[in-house]
């Protein structure tokens, strides 16, 4: 029989701290759907998505009920469309996005990720067609998410792609101006994109992945916060940062175990392989489910103040260690997210001016992703936006880690004003960008920034 403490601590995690499985993401390869006939291609992908995903939502709900752990989101990731739909032009890419949106709606998932291209070294015609179609594709669909990998440690930074993405993001914001540029919340620009991310908007199914696979995204900032606060309350004497890191690691391990249990059961019911567990502290705009609140639990008045980068480094590392100990198949991003609008506490820090773009960028050196859900003034120039993206890509390239941007230039709004995205995407104050309407001749030089010396590993 389990001992009392084991039972109490588990119940505390389950009942008081928002422990849930944030997403079960079904990866589906679309490579066997290829055709140079648009109607046939659309029909093929719709059939294949329906074949694998028709029971996904029911099985996730059933499994969640059985274990008393809610599977909050059920999602689909697919092969990069720029590869699977290589023969098609820009307007046809929009049609494909609409088919994906419809297929996702039919099976009841809220997002489908993989309207993607991998262009870190160069762009094919289909890569260009897909990227150029993004503004129309994402503003005329609800569920489709796009991710474009423009840089990697092995290949350097494709600055032509960075410039094209800056232009694309501006156009997408303009096309969804009535919703504060919401389309941009579904566009991620990556350096070193992992092939098995379950979290949106960056999820896509990599080229070396199986025909279908279940990847699980487990969250739990509330669980970590509660454990820290309980420990500080009970063991105030002698609880230094080394022991707090150990506590975070242990908690992350427990949370990952739950996620893997659920993921493996869903995979088994669907009769497809289990892929990875991505343990990421992914906040929602809910009190008690915030990464920013962890900063306050540990004694910082607000995220963004001096000490934030050191704290985030410790948090991110402890989460990764806990996850790695819990499961042999940890993947995706695994760490701590700092999405500004999706975290009430971080959004508040931005509103008060305690969290600036520069500090956010510094923190992305040690977090698991990057500049995430950052609303900037709508009149920020393409060149300046390209500069922000390039800086973030450079951090990923040089540090051999994943970085990304999900930036929303909010049309018609300026610094300090609020942008509203709704639902899990939340709302946030618009963060100022220095010299935002100025020129940036550096990024306009284009070409490729060469890969760093440590890419030469062979």
């Amino acid at each position, binding site marked *: 029989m389990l001992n009392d403490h084991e039972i109490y601590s*588990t119940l505390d995690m389950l009942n008081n701290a928002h422990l849930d499985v944030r997403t079960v993401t079904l990866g589906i390869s679309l490579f066997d759907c290829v055709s140079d006939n648009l109607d046939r291609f659309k029909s093929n992908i719709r059939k294949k998505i329906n074949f694998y995903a028709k029971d996904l939502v029911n099985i996730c709900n059933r499994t969640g009920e059985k*274990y*008393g752990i809610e599977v909050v989101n059920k999602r689909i990731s697919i092969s990069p469309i720029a590869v699977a739909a290589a023969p098609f032009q820009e307007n046809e890419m929009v049609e494909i996005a609409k088919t994906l949106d419809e297929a996702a709606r039919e099976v009841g998932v809220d997002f489908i990720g993989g309207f993607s291209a991998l262009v870190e070294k160069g762009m094919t015609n289909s890569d260009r067609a897909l990227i150029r179609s993004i503004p129309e594709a994402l503003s005329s669909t609800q569920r489709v998410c796009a991710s474009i990998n423009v840089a990697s440690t092995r290949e350097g930074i494709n600055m032509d792609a960075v410039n094209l993405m800056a232009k694309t993001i501006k156009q997408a914001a303009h096309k969804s101006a009535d919703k504060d540029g919401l389309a941009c919340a579904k566009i991620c620009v990556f350096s070193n994109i992992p092939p098995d991310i379950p979290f949106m908007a960056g999820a896509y199914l990599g080229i070396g992945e199986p025909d279908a696979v279940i990847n699980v995204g487990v969250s739990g900032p509330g669980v970590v916060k509660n454990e820290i606060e309980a420990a500080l309350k009970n063991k105030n004497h002698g609880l230094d940062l080394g022991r707090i890191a150990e506590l975070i690691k242990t908690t992350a391990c427990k949370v990952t175990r739950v996620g893997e249990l659920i993921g493996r059961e869903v995979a088994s019911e669907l009769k497809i392989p289990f892929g990875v567990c991505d343990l990421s502290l992914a906040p929602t705009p809910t009190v008690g489910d915030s990464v920013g609140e962890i900063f306050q639990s540990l004694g910082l008045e607000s995220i963004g103040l001096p000490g934030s980068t050191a704290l985030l480094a410790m948090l991110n590392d402890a989460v990764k260690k806990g996850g790695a100990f819990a499961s042999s198949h940890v993947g995706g991003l695994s760490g701590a997210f700092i999405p500004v609008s999706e975290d009430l506490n971080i959004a508040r820090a931005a509103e008060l001016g305690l969290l600036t773009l520069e500090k956010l960028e510094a923190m992305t050196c040690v977090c698991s992703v990057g500049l995430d859900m950052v609303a900037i003034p709508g009149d920020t120039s393409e060149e300046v936006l390209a500069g922000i993206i390039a800086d973030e890509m450079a951090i990923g390239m040089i540090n051999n880690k994943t970085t990304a941007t999900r930036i929303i230039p909010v049309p018609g709004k300026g610094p300090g004003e609020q942008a509203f995205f709704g639902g899990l995407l939340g709302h946030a104050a618009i963060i100022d960008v220095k010299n935002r309407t100025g020129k940036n001749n550096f990024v306009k030089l284009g070409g490729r920034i060469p890969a760093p010396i440590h890419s030469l590993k062979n």
Partner: protein
Amino acid sequence: MKKAIITSLTDDRPGVLASISASLFKCDCNLLEVSQTILGSEFAGIFIVSMPKELNEEELKKKLETDLRGENINIHVKPLKESKTFETPCDPFIVTTFGPDRKGLVSAVTSAIARHNSNVTNLKAFFHGGDNPRDNVMIYEIDIPKSENLKALSEDLNKLGEKFSLEINIQHKKIFDNITKI
């Protein structure tokens, strides 16, 4: 093989298990399974043994009582039939309750569990009184047939929670195992 199940009750003290097991050995019994616990200050032991063919259960009881005379141990012996175990495919769950003590709690919870054809495989309960909910706890390990409606059982338990002002949780045992056992 002839088997018997022996139950024993006595005041707990050092040497109780030693005395009983020594007597069983003298009676040429072989221990197959033992479970013991202490409730309050009382020792309770249950022994499954294989016993000599020439003895019947009544004779074994008398031999043990004679051997353990002066130790004030209540002994009961009954034949153990090879019975079918609970063979329905089941999922293991843990039901926990926290809240104020009052008469009829165990009866109410176990009745709800029984109504859903579920089997209690282990129960630990203590009621120390007072305001701290964790001083009044019941922890049931139960097997729920896969064919049973888990939601209906959960709802029944929640109703009991409301009636008795208890915090009741029902959770799959694998969750506890995965979180606590690595």
